[in-house]
């Protein structure tokens, strides 16, 4: 709180970023310990979390006041005009301080209290269980086992404790291999394809330099390919551009020499590094932030930013990976430099293509937990949670989400979740409101005691599940077992709803999704009503036919039975209004129009009787 000098400024104007007229909203700006809040004259509230602020700028003084521009990590950009310069300066300084914390303990998650008790919080953290997930994939099994080599984070600090390795790889081999890999990140299992018995493994680059080799590492790779009983050769995918990998050799790192490793097929896939990605996004945001942007400038800007090219590169790599497993039945080892950025992208997207479980809401959480959080994607550094090196910030995870979005666009029926789910996750990797994305690796998270001091995001998303459901999802369709996306260039589009999330004027004004969701809900309600009514009819009939059936059986041999049938009909018909009345009394919502329509339909219906007759007739035959 010591950073806050002014807590309330009145008569602040909020400018519309894209409006060509200088339309603005006037209101009051509040500064709290965690948020910046703007309440306009219509009482509409705009909350901006301090942690979301990426950049605050004070522009040159104008006649109407002092402009303050705030750029957020969730791509919100707000443009305030504060009447007095001193207020503006105070707020500017406070925000500078508040948006960049030096210590984890000062982050919002450590003070956020959603009113849950300890056991609820713990339950929340246990929602995603990775051991359970590996069991789902079918490991441990005869070829793969859980290794305790990294139990105390001794071999690799940035890996999780539980690691799955080929059963034939002994501990010395693992230790030896880890010494030959950058940051000790030796090859481990990321995803196991049960039907193909093929595996996706991940690691960091080898410390091969120009000629160095490591027998243990060679053995470990051989063990991975032997763990695949169908195909003896395995792919080694270096997700970097070849030039980058070669440059790394000079620093004693590099890539696998195909001559030293038996049965490997080596492949570069050419995804650029975090710095290229950062500046690419920067360019993209510059272009689309332009007021009165022309179509030509937009497309040439989109092209020169290279953003969609990078997205396509990631997607192509994931497709290559999925194909190697599906078509060639080969295991694949993926790495980049350190194996926590591009490797995470490619492994997680590849698994998403292969396994429909990851396309469910819960499964997607598991996927993020596995390939990103546990394998040490440096969320805190990449998202700039703390005041740190700006060169470490990069939208790697955002790219992953965008790739997933492109898949949802191409396969609208294959995903249980919708775009809002992706946007919400993106919101929270930067919000520091929950503990999941704090820290850079599991070891760090344990040291921060996140599970005791903060809450997990996932249970909150699950509680809100309804908002994130894709109404078109058809989980049964075998068509969507394995996704084979088409990466022809025109399938890649600018993701407006991400990069212009808060620029409502650019959005479609009506949502098809909402309508379908509502329709579905109505349908379900109606179907429930039908079932209720049907079961009631059944009950009533059962009561009656218990008596009648015996009679009917007796009568069936006699030709007079039709008279009985008519009388039966008659009885059945008189019964219906009673039933109807019952239903109403029981208190179904009479205001629900659809119900009453339905009820009318019901009261005039005769087919019930007909079906009863059929039933009887069958029995007499």
């Amino acid at each position, binding site marked *: 709180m010591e950073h806050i000098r002014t807590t309330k400024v009145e008569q602040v104007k909020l400018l519309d970023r894209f409006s060509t007229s200088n339309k603005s909203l006037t209101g009051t700006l509040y500064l709290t310990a965690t948020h910046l809040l703007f309440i306009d004259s219509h009482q509409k509230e705009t909350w901006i979390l301090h942690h979301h602020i990426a950049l605050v700028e004070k522009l040159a003084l104008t006649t109407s006041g002092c402009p303050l521009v705030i750029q957020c990590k969730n791509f919100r950009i707000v443009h305030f005009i504060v009447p007095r310069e001193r207020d503006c300066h105070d707020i500017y300084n406070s925000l500078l301080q508040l948006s960049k914390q030096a210590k984890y303990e000062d982050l919002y998650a450590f003070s956020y209290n959603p009113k849950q008790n300890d056991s609820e919080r713990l339950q929340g953290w246990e929602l995603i269980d990775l051991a359970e997930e590996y069991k789902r994939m079918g490991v441990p099994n005869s070829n793969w086992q859980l290794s305790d080599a990294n139990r105390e984070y001794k071999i690799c600090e940035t890996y999780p404790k539980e690691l799955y390795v080929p059963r034939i790889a002994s501990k010395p081999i693992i230790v030896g291999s880890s010494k030959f890999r950058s940051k000790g990140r030796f090859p481990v299992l990321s995803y196991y394809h049960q039907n193909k018995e093929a595996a996706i493994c991940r690691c960091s680059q080898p410390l091969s330099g120009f000629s160095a080799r490591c027998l243990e590492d060679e053995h470990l790779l051989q063990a991975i390919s032997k763990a695949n009983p169908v195909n003896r050769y395995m792919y080694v995918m270096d997700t970097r551009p070849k030039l980058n990998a070669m440059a790394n050799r000079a620093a004693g790192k590099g890539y696998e020499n195909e001559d030293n490793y038996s049965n490997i097929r080596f492949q570069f896939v050419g995804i650029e590094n975090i710095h290229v990605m950062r500046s690419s996004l920067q360019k993209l945001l510059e272009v689309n932030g332009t007021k009165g*942007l022309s179509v030509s400038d937009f497309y040439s800007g989109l092209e020169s930013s290279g953003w969609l090219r990078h997205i396509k590169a990631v997607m192509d790599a994931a497709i290559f990976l999925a194909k190697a497993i599906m078509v060639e039945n080969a295991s694949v080892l993926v790495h980049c430099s350190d194996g926590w950025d591009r490797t995470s992208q490619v492994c997680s997207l590849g698994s998403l293509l292969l396994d429909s479980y990851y396309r469910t809401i819960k499964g997607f959480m598991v996927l993020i937990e596995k390939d990103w959080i546990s394998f040490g994607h440096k969320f805190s550094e990449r998202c700039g949670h703390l005041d740190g090196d700006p060169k470490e910030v990069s939208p790697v995870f955002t790219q992953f989400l965008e790739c997933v979005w492109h898949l949802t666009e191409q396969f609208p029926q294959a995903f249980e979740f919708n775009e809002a789910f992706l946007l919400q996750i993106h919101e929270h990797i930067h919000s520091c409101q929950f503990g999941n994305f704090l820290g850079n690796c599991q070891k760090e998270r344990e040291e921060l005691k996140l599970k005791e001091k903060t809450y997990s995001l996932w249970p909150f998303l699950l509680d809100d599940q309804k908002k994130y459901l894709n109404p078109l999802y058809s989980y049964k369709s075998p068509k969507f077992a394995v996704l084979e996306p088409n990466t022809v260039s025109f*399938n890649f*589009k600018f993701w407006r709803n991400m990069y212009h999330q808060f620029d409502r004027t650019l959005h*479609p004004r009506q949502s*098809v999704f909402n309508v379908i969701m509502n329709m579905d809900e109505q349908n379900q309600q109606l179907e429930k009503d039908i079932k209720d009514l*049907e079961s009631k009819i059944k009950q009533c*009939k059962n009561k009656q036919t218990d008596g009648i059936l015996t009679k009917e059986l007796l009568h069936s041999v006699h030709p007079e039975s039709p008279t009985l049938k008519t009388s039966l009909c008659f009885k059945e018909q008189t019964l219906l209004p009673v039933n109807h009345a019952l239903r109403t009394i029981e208190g179904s919502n009479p205001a629900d129009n659809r119900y009453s329509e339905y009820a009318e339909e019901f009261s005039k219906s005769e087919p019930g009787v007909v079906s009863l007759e059929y039933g009887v007739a069958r029995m007499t035959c």
Partner: protein
Amino acid sequence: MDEIEFSSTGSGWGPRSEVLAVGWGNSCETVRWLLPRGLLNSCPAGVASCPASSCPFPSPRSPRLTLLESVLLLGPRPTTGGMEFSELIRTGRAQAKLLRGPEAPPLRGTLCVTGHHLLLSPGPQGTSDLWLLLLRSVDSIEKRVSGDSGTITLRCKDLRVLQLDIEGVEATLDIARSIEGLRLGDAWHFHPPERYYKRVARETNAWRLSEVNEDFSLCLSYPRAVIVPRAVDDDALARCARFRQGGRFPVLSYHHAPSGTVLLRSSQPLTGPQKRRCAEDEELLRAVLAGARPGAPGFILDTRSAQAAKQARVTGGGTEAKAAYPGWKRLHRPLERGRPLQESFVRLVEACGDLEQSMDGWLSQLEACHWLAHVKEALSTACLAARGVEREEACVLVHGAEGTDSTLLVTSLAQLILDPLSRTMTGFQELVEREWIQAGHPFQLRCAHSAFSHACPKHEAPTFLLFLDCVWQLGRQFPLSLEFGEGLLLALFEHAYASPFGTFLCSSEKERCLCEVRTRTHSLWSGLNQPKVRRKLRNPLYVPNPLAIWPSVEPQSLRLWQGLFLRWIRPPEPSQVAWEKVWQRLASKEKTEGCEPTSKPQL
């Protein structure tokens, strides 16, 4: 060469027996009725008869003629004479006996159903003539099946009753179904200007329907009747017409009831280098303002740049001088037209055909073709016009040079934004009819070639396609507010370029009258409004929206219309499957709502 000639004296002719089949070598020069293989199944026009005296084509070399001919007379001439008639048709064939009432002897032969006719061919040994019936003359159809044969009873509009005994149950049902399907709507379905006038008249008294152009003497490209200010008489209109290019004097395009103001369209005034003026033209625009809400301002929206408008003076055109039209303010919004637009279209289609290109290549081609820039310009100009009418409560006159292209683009889009009725299935069809077809958009010239033609473009321009694309963008931004789906837009695109229907034929009302399009062809609207087709073209999620729909025209909000430009290129789109699922849901919703709840339980 053998001549096949069918006389109209036979007793088997339908009421509209202009259905005349003339063999080649007949005296009629211009329209020959050939009977090739493809023609009978896809015969475009109702079948042509053409007494030489009323021949609409002044010269067989006129480009319009060749166009019409190509539409009317598809296919090559058969080279072998004397072949059995039914040989020419592949589908819908059966052995049948025709009973034509108690007096006439029954006819036996092969029965064929073609796109427009029912034919009974007596076979090579038969002595009697071939029998033809125009399907449009069938009023009702009844089928009965017994044993392995069936009977179809046709009751015709001329009160005749015909009975067909057909061998085979399947065949009977097939033929009955074909006849049922091909019978189409009754009258030539179109929306005359009177119809829109009725609506305007309910809303205001300031406008009247003038038939001053009854004989197309004032303006070749206007329809017979136009809506003009009540205060201006026909003589004044005649003088106005002389002051506007092509005689297109200002007429009402849309009356916006909530604000009491109007949208007008015309062509450029012929001010010329001497800055000519026309008192009647000035009077007309004054009357427009007087008829609107008192004090309403007027805007003249010129779809050319200020400079281009000025340059037009050299060739006799120009713009309204400010001093001469008090109360009217001029705005310039340059819209691309003509060849650059066609080139843009060609380049876009080219870019879409290249599947191998890199991300960067694709984006730069998308940028370089400028198509989406044209979409943005068209939409934002339409928004401007609509805003003038709705927000500024002003009268807006739109014109470019000829007033037959970008002018119509702007007025029709503005109406779609403002008028909820034009967003319904019928309303949109009326809008296309009124603002494009009747308003004299030269479809024959603009849509002569599409994007693949190697012919050097002369008059071709995809203005109508640009309109459809803009409508699609509107539909994407307001997915619940248009009653029709992408399907209707695609159908209109197809039919504007090549169509078995007559709706898009010719370039103006006058030509359509001369060619007797209305009596000799079918209307596209009847085709599209058959219940089955209509259902497919509907937007399942439509909810009437009484408000104006203001689209976002930022480049981030516009998208390439993949459903059109990548229609034949991309693999069957899963998103289409998703749409089908939406349809299913709708159907299941309808089913649940109308469900008989007692169908399931059985004892």
